[in-house]
């Protein structure tokens, strides 16, 4: 498949947008006293259903922190997060875990596959954990999408980095999560493979209607994102809807100069 970064305006799912994640006035403070770091200082945002929302910003600007809080892996010092209408900041660990199971998918920079399981077993792991049945049609669709049909019996050690990340993507898609979070999914891949992954994520949004929030440093994301948020020092400093790589480069430099 050729790398296609062209935006397809007016895609079917983008029109009927609901709010997948609703975050209000998020603060996150690490440590206390003199050494306290304010990683987030008042971030509010809505992640729209069927959108690919990209988060960019310099290192240390709070991107990962924001992702973790939106995904319910971390709790904000103050502020609220709703996923699919459920307030998650007050849930206990078990309830939160169950919510993640149902509503949240993850793609990590370091793939994080289980080495002793085959690709297939890794992909269906979230369903197994939840004690749910695998829908064979959906499984086939996802596997075809990530182009792993011929690699299903391989173990992670026998797969390339790109293939491993595609397994991770399939693992995230298999539960049809309300929202899928990806923190620098291309950070550990070469540029070409990274492009393929971006392409795949875009395709998931377009054809499967998957909602995605993604942190990346790759300017090519501009062509596939419905919206790009720029974080600087714990605040949203800029927001670009449907943008171009050039605009992004400019924005990054602007923020860097501040």
């Amino acid at each position, binding site marked *: 498949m050729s790398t296609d970064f062209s935006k397809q305006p007016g895609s079917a799912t983008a029109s009927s947008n609901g709010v997948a994640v609703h975050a209000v006035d998020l603060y996150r403070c690490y440590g206390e006293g003199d050494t306290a770091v304010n990683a987030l200082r008042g971030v509010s945002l809505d992640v729209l259903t069927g959108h690919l929302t990209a988060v960019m910003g310099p290192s240390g600007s709070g991107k990962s922190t924001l992702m973790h809080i939106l995904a319910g*892996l971390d709790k904000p010092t103050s502020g609220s997060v709703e996923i699919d209408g459920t307030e998650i900041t007050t849930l206990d660990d*078990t309830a939160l*875990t*169950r919510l993640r199971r149902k509503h949240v998918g993850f793609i990590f920079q370091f793939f994080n596959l*289980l080495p002793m399981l085959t690709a297939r077993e890794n992909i269906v*792991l979230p369903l197994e954990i939840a004690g749910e049945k695998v829908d064979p049609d959906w499984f086939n669709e996802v596997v075809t999408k990530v182009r792993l049909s011929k690699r299903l019996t391989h173990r992670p050690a026998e797969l390339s980095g790109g293939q491993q990340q595609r397994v991770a993507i399939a693992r995230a898609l298999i539960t049809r999560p309300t929202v899928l979070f990806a923190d620098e999914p291309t950070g550990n891949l070469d540029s070409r493979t990274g492009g393929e992954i971006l392409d795949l994520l875009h395709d998931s949004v377009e054809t499967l209607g998957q909602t995605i929030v993604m942190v990346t440093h790759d300017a090519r994301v501009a062509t596939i994102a419905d919206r790009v948020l720029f974080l600087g020092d714990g605040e949203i400093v800029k927001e670009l809807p449907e943008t171009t790589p050039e605009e992004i480069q400019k924005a990054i430099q602007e923020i860097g100069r501040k």
Partner: protein
Amino acid sequence: MIRITLRGLLTRKLRSFLTAIAIVLGVCMISGTYVLTDTINHSFDSLYQQIYKGTDANITGRSVVSNDYSGTGITPSFSESVLAKVRAVKDVKAASGGVGSASCSIVGKNGKVVSTGGAPNLGYSIDPSIPELNTVTLVSGSWPKKNEVVIDQGAANKTGYMAGDMIGILVNGPVRKMRLSGIIKFGESNSILGATLAGFDLATAQQLFDRQGKLDAIQAVAKPGVSPEKLVQELRHALPKDLTVRTGQQEASKASSDTSKQISAFQYFLLAFAGIALFVGSFVIINTLSITVAQRTREFATLRTLGGSRLQILGSVMVEAIVIGIAASICGLVLGFGLAIGLMRLFEKLGLELPKNAMVIEPRTVIVSLVVGVVVTLIASIWPALRAVRVPPIAAVREGAVLPPSFFHAYRTPGSLALVAMGFGALLSGLFVHGLGTGLTLVLLGAGALLIFIGVAIVAARVVKPIARAVSPIGTFAVILLSTLIWPFSFLLWLFSLAIGRRKEFPDFWPFVLLLWLIRSARGKKPRLSSLIPDRAMNRLALANSGRSPERTASSAAALMIGCALVTLVAVLSASLIGSFKGAVDSIFTGNYALTPVNSSSTTGIPIASSKAVAKVPGVEAISSVRTGFARVFGKNSMVTAVDGQPSKVFRLKWKTGSESTLDSLGATGAVVSDAFAKSHHLNLQSPLKVVTPAGKSLNLKVAGIFKPPTGGSAFADVTFSAKTFDANFQDPANMYTLLNMRGGTSEANSRALDKALKGFPNAQAQTRKEFADAQIASLNPILMVLYVLLAFSVLISFVGIVVMLVLTVYERTRELGMLRAIGITQRQTRRMIRHESVITALIGGAMGIALGIVFGALLVSRIPFVSFTLPVGELFLFAILAVIIGIAAAVLPARRAARLNVLEALQYE
């Protein structure tokens, strides 16, 4: 380099601590054993020193038969006239003669003899007129006069008797009522090792013990300035040759050496278990250090790139081991002192009071404990250290670099199989090659078992995966079973957690789940039962995890395997013994009642008069008693038995020559022998057979019959003759037991009639056939308990081994656990996953151990004559469940750590 190592140790505190435990327990057993046995030994030494303190010369009859197992009464008594001859010797200042018996019981206020738990009931004459020779002191009352008695403080405490009471004394025959004139103490002790003491004046004692005009021993004191040796010389000249004269010192050290022989056997026995514990511990050490080395691959590689030599890497691992070894050995040493003190307290509680003495800590105890602990740790660290050395510098820069396969890798499986084969070779030759001697046999058995364990442990890595797959569902269901059993408890815990506001998860209630399934099935939906097991995914992950590094799982399991194999061996042996014995009792014993001693471990038997009294009970159709004694036959000390009454009516034997009625008509010279005995001494019908009594008298018997003892042991010794002959030639004849047949079989009325007839025999009791059989077996139980407790140490160590493995595994898989938590496994699921891996590991160990134990047991049983193999199914099932419990318990700490990992930190963990 050493500084780095030490800092590493400190940062890995928990792991170092757990690793050390493996050695601490083994060393603790070593030092505890030494301190305990040394202290007991010392106690006995000073006891005998005390007894013979004032004695310069001790004169006894000379025994031709020695029997290490009983003390008093084995040397023949001699004429009282000797005393006058002794007193007439020039240098004798004073001399006192005495008699004694080891079967002189005190009858308590309840009419039953004071029970001693196996210790003897000593009775002897006391001569307070010669203070040098008197070893006891009066606590209250006065010394005994004619027909009076003094008893020890311990017995007085047990019975509540006070000076002036009339008390019952039982020797042979009916109870004698005597006035208790006083209470005595032995040195500082209320009693000696639980024995009861009864003291009389000489004439009373002679009459009680049937020694009129005779003495068992004379103690003499020399005039001032005369050495004991000189006195002994003079006495030897003056006295007949059939008397033994020794100095008090010699007598004391002879007595000491007799007991210290037994104690040193006990010491070896305990040390063997300490050795097993250390062996298991070394598995744990190897495993822990190997895992650490694997986890530190990157670190070692970096050190290598920075210029560290292979030797330095080797050193760093070894130093770590040495530090752990030294620290653990010191802890073990000190804990061992505690263990010894605890055991001595326990003995005291059980009534086996030792003469008061300080704990004896020999330098040897300290040296051996420390050296063994450190050396075992060092040896166990060699393999992991060599692995560390093989880490190439390139591993520092390459993600996931694996160690190059070792030189031995290719030979691993054949090599370990060869070890197993060699082990079995040693085991089999130890068991079945004749004439090897005890020492060599034990060495062969020990070495064989050791080789087999090591070989199986190594080869186990190859078969861990299939075994894990096989035991995984067993583990699942065992855990379900156990959690159902403890559900009420878990529920209470849950309520409690609600009450204190720290809500736990609601405990699964499996019967409820099952009910749900039944309802759903009844409704026509057919969910698979297995689909109801929550977290099958977790179990599957755990199963996959257990196969990730098979060496680790295998060696953790192997540690448990050793303990399990030995426990199983013990269970198989005891089941076989008990099964065979029950079978033997059933086949030999056709009577329906038995008369036996109240103290089941009593070596003194019950008065012959008791069977005479019972014989008069209406309804008794046949009665026969068995006496036992030691004699010299074909130049060897052996046990002999004698029968009276109508043996043919209560015994049934298999005969080669003769029949039951042969037993009825042995006459003065007839003897029956076992077929094995007949074979080894080439005896046939009418062959002459010479039996030499302890008093030196030769009995010329003739073989009248040859019988085949059944498996499970015979009621008779190799040589059996008539009670008439026995009573005429052996001192203190008494029945070991009496069998009888009553009209109407066992019944309330019959039991009552027998009890009534036995009123005057407080140390005899009537047992039904079944009670009799059970009572014989009951004496096995304490031995079993001791063995299980000693093996429990090894099992405990392997338990710690599983804990360490899991803790290290959790470290290693931190990032993975973070990912799993992120994609939706709950804390409870995390715990279940770790727990299941632990249960699988424990079950692998349990399964291999039980299998090996059965094999060992079968081999050993096949070697023991009269015993046939019995599989203790119930016990083995219990052991499997215990393995599951060990698995569950081992997972508690690691599972909690895993569940409490902060998801984000775990995800970022390097």
